[in-house]
């Protein structure tokens, strides 16, 4: 298990370097645009060149990358071109806001999905049809529309929940809960549909296997078989889906934040992208990749723990 963990960690580091390198390289094509944007179209070539030299943007790209990487490893992500804020503190704060919607949304989706998926697979019949209908509904409506619908309904028409604004958990937990409720619901609708579909499918396959019947002949109760055996086998592939869903939800959150004016990763990304604020953009990429690599690592490890055969590969 230890070797497996170390191997996955090593992969993660390599992937991180490669992704950040490619992103850096792609962005380098518009470094000069950023400078002209800052200075305005009337700037003289000398001023432009001077600013580029000052920002270190006239050096060869690979050199810039390694310089940046060296700083990153020491924890220095530079300062924003526009606000001068240190990136290393600004970005995690925004990440925290977004995660405070995504993580609860994922947990709630998983909880709902396990219950729905296992019940539908184990009982079949009418229960299954109802669950399938619910799943279909979740698929049909895009995140964005769900968010807007709920805002219109709960906030604007019924005045039950705030339409916009965010209160940090540390300041006032109750207000925080109210401000994140609708965004979380919006994310859960699609997320639960996807995950429960996966769990239902995996459980149906599992319950058809031979060992299920043999366990029954030993006198073990059906409930025990479903939960201790079938679910555990189905959990492995399901975990991978949780990982994907987390990243998808994160993406969805970036857009929904706009609807609710939440000061999270989404709005920050959007603004810095429009302003060509490269240190911030790179900082956002770094943390974004941390997230993806981290999530994949966790699901791989959990899969390895749950399923001994997976550790061989």
């Amino acid at each position, binding site marked *: 298990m230890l070797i497996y963990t170390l191997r996955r960690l090593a992969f993660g580091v390599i992937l991180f370097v*490669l992704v950040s390198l490619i*992103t850096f390289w792609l962005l380098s094509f518009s470094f000069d645009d950023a400078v002209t944007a800052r200075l305005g179209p009337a700037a003289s070539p000398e001023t432009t060149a001077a600013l580029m030299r000052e920002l270190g943007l006239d050096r060869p790209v690979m050199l810039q990358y390694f310089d940046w990487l060296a700083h990153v490893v020491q924890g220095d992500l530079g300062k924003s071109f526009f606000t001068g804020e240190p990136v290393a503190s600004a970005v995690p704060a925004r990440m925290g806001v977004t995660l405070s919607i995504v993580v609860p949304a994922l947990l709630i989706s998983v909880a709902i999905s396990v219950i729905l998926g296992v019940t539908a697979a184990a009982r079949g019949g009418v229960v299954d049809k109802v669950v399938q209908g619910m799943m279909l509904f979740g698929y049909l409506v*895009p995140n964005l529309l769900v968010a807007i619908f709920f805002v219109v309904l709960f906030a604007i028409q019924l005045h039950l929940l705030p339409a916009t604004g965010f209160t940090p958990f540390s300041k006032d937990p109750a207000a925080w809960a109210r401000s994140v409720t609708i965004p979380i619901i919006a994310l859960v609708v699609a997320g639960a549909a996807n995950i429960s579909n996966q769990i239902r499918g995996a459980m149906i396959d599992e319950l058809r296997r031979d060992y299920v019947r043999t366990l029954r002949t*030993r006198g073990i109760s059906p409930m025990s078989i479903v939960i201790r055996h079938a679910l555990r086998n189905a959990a492995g592939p399901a975990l991978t889906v949780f990982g994907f869903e987390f990243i998808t939800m994160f993406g*969805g959150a970036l857009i929904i934040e706009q609807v609710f004016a939440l000061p999270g990763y*989404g709005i920050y990304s*959007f603004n810095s992208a429009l302003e060509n604020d490269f240190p911030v953009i790179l900082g956002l990429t770094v943390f974004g990749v941390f997230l993806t690599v981290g999530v*994949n690592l966790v699901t791989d490890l959990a899969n390895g723990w749950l399923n001994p055969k997976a550790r061989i590969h």
Partner: protein
Amino acid sequence: MQRLLRDPQALITGGLLLLITFAGLLAPVLSQHDPNQASLEAVNVAMGSPGHPIGGDANGRDIFARLLASINTAAISAIICSSIALVLGTVGGLIGGYFDKFRNASEWAFTLIMTFPGLLVLILLTPITRGDFRFTMAMFGVLLSPSIYRIVRNLTVAVSRELYVDAAKVSGLTNFRILARHVLSVVRGPIIVAAAFMFGSAISVQSGLAFLGLGSKETPSFGAMIAEGFRNFYISPLQYLWPALALGVINGALVLFGNALRDVLEGARPKPAPIVSKAAVDAARFDGLKPSGAALVDVRDLGVAYRMSQDEQKEVVRGVSFSVEPGETLGLVGESGSGKTQTAFAILGVLPAEAIVTRGSIVLDGNQVIGAKEREMRVLRGASVAYIPQEPMSNLDPVYTVGSQLVEGMRASTSESRGAAKARALDLLRRVGIADPERTFRSYPHQISGGMAQRVLIAGAIASKPRLLIADEPTTALDVTVQAEILDLLRDLQAEFGMGLLLVTHNFGVVADICDRVAVMRQGELVEIGNVEEIFSSPQHEYTKSLLDSILDEETVRKDPPVATVAGRAS
């Protein structure tokens, strides 16, 4: 294709999508205004105004014209994104799946793509896309390609392992032809379905990005319209509704169409099979039928059927009757489709959920099995009857150690503690001939051989000292030398515990080795039953005779010499 046209869901949603697409293409004809043409009189004008059937937006542009133009934007997004994802993913999946030496490279490449944090990347790379949605959708296509890659790679690997691909190689087909002919035909369907769902994703994502405000102001899109309408909510509450509805309808239609496509192309998905079948008994006429004698199990006129269609059932067990006495071994012999395994399952109460018991009675250790509740059956399983399956590996749960499964089974029938059960389990493993019980106890199923796994399953079956043991082709999956040892073991255990043994098999050699009596089944019916010596020496039924005749006997040896090739190459 014809099936697609006959499916109502596909027809309606497909037709709707076609309609919408044409509306978009015919935009210049259908609307009177250019989507970006702003005029002061049209600002926030209400629905139904002349020239503006759905009104005007905050900038004075015609909403209807913008809606139609947005359809085109959506269509272009979907096409760009999906084509790139499909081409990349399919080529990568075919090559990585079929050629072992390229698999590592392709895995790395697509894992790398998957590590890019999705939507975030699309937003952050705006500086180089400069808001051109086509460029962004192309990037999204690249980001989506790993999901296509995974589907294609898995299918390709599965197909490349099939024997018909080996046969094609031996026939002299080039790899290219094998990929094109055999692999692609399997991969085609799922890719088409995936494409349909990707269309929906692309349109949703493009709308989301446009909603955020990324993208050129000139490009009309649902997302941009929703954002503008939302900002204008208090002045004109319905402006956001039209693009939202349009987006919802298109997305919904795509999802439903995708589902219909999947049903047609990939066939029915497996349905849930509840472990415990509910009302499976159909007019059982066994009330009060208590057999005399001390038979362990008494089967009378058993009928088991499966539903073929709405009104017809097919009986796979047709009126079978036999009994097993304590200490005796009854062989249940037949070819495939004879119903012998179904009979065994019926006695254990583990018939699949779709099975219907149509008639008869099974009295097991004095209890009526047909119609018995699961709770009652659980009491019988373990103490009264136990089961040894055919295929050892697939009958062990791969994620638990062999030992823990043994202990779990034991504690289900008795109330012993975990420690006591473990000690007894180790004894049992030793008893069934496993050399190193501790090591096997700690092993996972994939770490032990087939023969050892079968011994483990036997240990699990006899752990609760059952009175009747049902063995379903217990040696068919094993080597002949291992088979001999397992049969020896079964005979010993039977002598030691005084169990009755119901042995389901198609192998007459096994019958001759271990059975006292034989029952011959054919297509659900029991055609002959008797002592083993009688059946072999003087079979009564035609079918039994023909079966015994087709056994390759010990004396026949190939005598004729090899024929030299007839007139050169044979034709």
